[in-house]
């Protein structure tokens, strides 16, 4: 007699796929960055996806292709960020809530359980809460909250596919100094995407904002040293002039040797930054005597440039959605 007290699996079960770790012919290597240092990855953004929410948006990054533009094997494929954001509100606060003169913003970021190689739990962990705090501070600067007293707005982001710091074969919590230096980049680039998608969703919801706030990431990287440079670097300090390089929108899968990264939430039309988060050590500039601008300045600037570039995508997405709205409102369009 069958066991009735348990929920049993189907009769004909399947075994989960197991991938060979070192298949012949494949070198499990990091991908190298195919685009220029000043180029960001391509984005895809769509607004108004979720009908039940006041505003919503979907954002994804184009996955980086393999060396010859061919995607590698499945297990090897680097993650590409995919985010959905729903905005609920502005809605009246419950009667039990105390009076607020401004719009009460609350942001939630949750990784889907399948968003990363390491399965995520259903309860929000510290990283997710940290990201939510950063997102909240980025968004609070753009909302004109005074126009919505006694109201609240919930920004809910689900990370469908997250960026990860490591490949499958690499140890997750490595003590290797080289690796651990670029750890945390995934989170940064998720935050940048979250800021952009949340801003788009808020605008889609029709909540009063001063501007789009767009996320941008930049990193300080050391390109692989040529022999000549190596010789030079032995003589001089570790960071001679022009050895380090600043990359816009680094993908964690493509870089292993990053020293510092920076994410900004940037308002282009006001030239304001609502969120700035820097991790790592910025190297000194080669000629240390007259530091007009530190590397940090340059890094921040590049992050802002990345945001400016991403902004165009957001603007295009809204142009498209507005076009549709106008078309569907005009009576002669059937």
């Amino acid at each position, binding site marked *: 007699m069958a066991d009735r007290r348990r929920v049993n699996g189907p009769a004909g079960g399947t075994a989960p796929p197991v991938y060979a770790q070192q298949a012949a012919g494949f070198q499990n290597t990091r991908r190298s960055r195919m685009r220029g240092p000043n*180029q960001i990855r391509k*984005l895809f953004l769509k607004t108004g*996806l979720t009908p039940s929410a006041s505003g919503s948006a979907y954002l*994804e990054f184009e996955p980086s292709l393999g060396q010859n533009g061919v995607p590698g094997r499945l297990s090897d494929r680097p993650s590409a960020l*995919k985010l959905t954001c729903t905005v609920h509100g502005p*809605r*009246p606060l419950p009667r039990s809530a105390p009076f607020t003169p401004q719009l009460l913003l609350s942001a939630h970021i949750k990784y889907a359980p399948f968003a990363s190689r390491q399965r995520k739990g259903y309860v929000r962990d510290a990283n997710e809460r940290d990201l939510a705090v950063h997102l909240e501070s980025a968004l609070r600067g753009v909302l004109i909250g005074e126009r919505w007293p006694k109201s609240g707005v919930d920004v809910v982001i689900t990370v469908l596919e997250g960026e990860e710091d490591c490949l499958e074969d690499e140890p997750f919590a490595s003590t290797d100094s080289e690796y651990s230096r670029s750890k945390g980049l995934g989170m940064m680039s998720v935050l940048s995407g979250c800021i952009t998608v949340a801003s788009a969703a808020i605008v889609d919801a029709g909540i009063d904002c001063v501007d789009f706030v767009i996320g941008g990431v930049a990193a300080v990287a050391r390109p692989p040293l040529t022999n000549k440079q190596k010789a030079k670097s032995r003589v001089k300090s570790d960071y001679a002039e022009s050895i380090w390089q600043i990359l816009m929108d680094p993908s964690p899968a493509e870089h292993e040797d990053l020293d510092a990264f920076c994410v900004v939430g940037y308002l282009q039309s006001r*030239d304001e930054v609502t969120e700035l988060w820097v991790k790592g050590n910025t190297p000194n500039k080669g000629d240390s005597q007259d530091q007009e601008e530190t590397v940090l300045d340059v890094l921040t*600037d590049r992050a802002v440039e990345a945001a*400016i570039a991403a902004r165009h995508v957001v603007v295009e997405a809204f142009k498209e959605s507005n076009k549709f709205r106008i078309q569907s409102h005009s009576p002669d369009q059937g």
Partner: protein
Amino acid sequence: MSRHKLIKQLDLEEELDDYDGGALYDNDENQGISPEDQGTFIIAIVNGEYRLRQGTIRVRDVLGPGFEISDARIQESLWYYYYDVEKSVNYLLSEQTSSNTKPKQKGADLKLSAVDGKSDLNCRCHRRWVENDYDLDFGAFNDPDVPIIHSVTGSSYFKPDVMSTFFNDAPWCNIPPGRQGEILIEPLYPPGRLMGGSSFQGDAKVSKLAAIAAARRMKEDARSRSGTVTSSVALLDKLGNKMSLETPNELEMAPKAATVKPLNPVQADTSKTSRKYPVRERGVLNSNTPEDAIPPVESIISERKRDPETFSIPIALPSAFARTILGPSFERAPTSGQDGPPCDLVGSPYHFFFDVADAKMDAFAEPSPDDVVLKAQTSKGTKTTKSGTGDEIRAVTSALGDVAISEAPKYKSKNLDVLAEFKKTQIKPTANFVVIGHVDAGKSTLMGRLLYDLKVVNKRTLDKYRKEAESIGKSSFALAWVLDQGTDERKQGVTIDIGMNNFETDKTAFTILDAPGHRDFIPNMIAGASQADFAVLVIDASTGSFESGLKGQTKEHALLVRSIGVQRIIIAINKLDTLSWSRDRFDEIQQQVSAFLTAAGFQPKNLAFIPCSGLTGENIVDVSTNVKASWYTGPPLISLLESSEPFARALEKPLRLTIDDIFRGGVQNPLSISGRIDAGSVQIGDIVITVPSNETAITKAIEVNSEPSDWAVAGQNVILHLANIDPNYLKTGDVICSLAAPIKPLSIFTMKVLAFEHILPMAVEVHRGRLHAPGRISKLAAVLDKASGKPKEGGKKVRIVKPGSVARVVVEVDEPVPLELGGKVVLRAGGQTVGAGLLE
């Protein structure tokens, strides 16, 4: 005169020529300084002249011999640039080219002189600064106070030379109107491009100022693109050209134009290379070299036009996943036809956007709860503040009337014609009967037997009662427990309050009202009897019990039900099984009781006698099979009950319902009342009024015999679920009336009373149904003749009313009671019924 006009009318050439009197000015200035200062000043001047000469030579070297230019001009530009050769050369070159290319509107001479004049002014300004603190800060040049005199009313443009003496001949506080200046404070315009401002040029309508600013920006852009002119040079350039411009606005804009951030040409070049996206300009704030001395006031970045060749929007195509969630036809399908929705949007997520658009917007579509309350408060406030004249009062009262109407129901009345409904439904005739008799006559047991035999109470329940009764040693009370539900009643073996139960036969629906027999509970008996149509008088036939009963409550009950209005009475002679069905005893009792009842006012035809036994159940539902009882050939009790004629109901009269009980009828019905409808009808949604509290309530629901009903009519025992009333306003004995015709509560009334005891002017309790109120007999008006109903012994004052006689008395009660004309009232005093009668 507006300043625009004034400035338009200025003859610039003439005005500026006046400035050439620099020598005079210098003299004036020099007079004011001390010899030491003069000394240092001279040194500075000498030093400056030396550098000026050196600079001129170097400039000439750079420009080469082919370049025709006067020494004065070179010196002047050197002055301006603080002996910086490179910048001066730049300036002179650009000056030369622009003067060559410009169409000569007013002639080169004019322009040149204008430039000269202006430069002179600059020099003067500069010198003043030298005097003051030897600080060669060209920022002072941008001081808006110096070159711009906003407005002066009056015919002549005043000259700065005479400025100090301008007010000399004017009396204090009495300046002639021609010379009064008009102070124009520039309004605070919102800073550009914040919330509302659009940074796009073109399609939107822009203000004049913004248009000028945009034009300026465009010009600057073009200039910076040419790459040769730095902005500080451009500034000088502008100042040079300005004199030829006619628009006063442009003149006004000058100080603002001067604040344009300098752009180092080298920097600009580097920033333009190697960047793929439009780049934010970084403000360079910390440069101390004099060529950058003009501080960048606005740090706002200018949005540069993006270069279409090098820049492409990094927009990606949706991934397979995105295509899946966006719908199958998201990728642009080839256009199939002309009509139909725009093809590229078919299947896009915006399809359902508009279905839900309205739902989305709903959150704040309605006024907020606060607004509703505020609105209500304000409207109420305005209503109440209206006062004074009669018209207004009338308006208010009519408005209040409206309010009373509008307050009505969420419980919708079906507006039934209840009487028609009642006639339509051929329901069984209903009858309420009260069971009366002396204590321990077996009233409850008889009724319990009746219900048991009619299968209203099942055997199982009765067995349970039997077992429980045996356990406390009262096995014979088991049947009585069917009606005696209270714990006190069961413990003491005495009915205390009215026991109610329903049963139906084939013909009639009955309601039993089991009255308590004990004399302490007469008020409850009165309450039960007032709901009854007829009565069943139970008499204990056993020896001694009958006799004591006839003196006791048998008599009192019979009189009471008669005076309350019961006309028909069935006399059940009980416990005959203990007397082995003795016919003699039955006849004896029948004789005595019929004599007494007839005397009490019952008509003989309305009396029916039946021998029975409640305990054994003979002659109750079935005729007795006992041979000893075979002498009785009449019908059993149930048949006698059924034979009672239907009673006329006061259906047409306004609603009257005396509240029998108030209770919580459940969660949904927090306030329910029960009682018998004495007159009229009621239906769901009716607004009723309670007397004496005079509060309105809405009939939310009606139950008749535990069945929900839409309406109820007189004669029915009903439960009304009320709404919109506080339970404090209700108490048992109050009367529920229709809103149209409520009872007027009385505090003093006259009644015709049949005396059971001696009646004096004394304190009495007034009973009517459940209602009992303390009061007193204040006056004995007259003793009446029983037959004719006319006052006996006219004129003589009545001091006492003897038992059995009829009198007219005046009764006062402490608090008004809901009594009506013709109401049957019982008067009791000291635990005894002293009289009963009708209200007159």
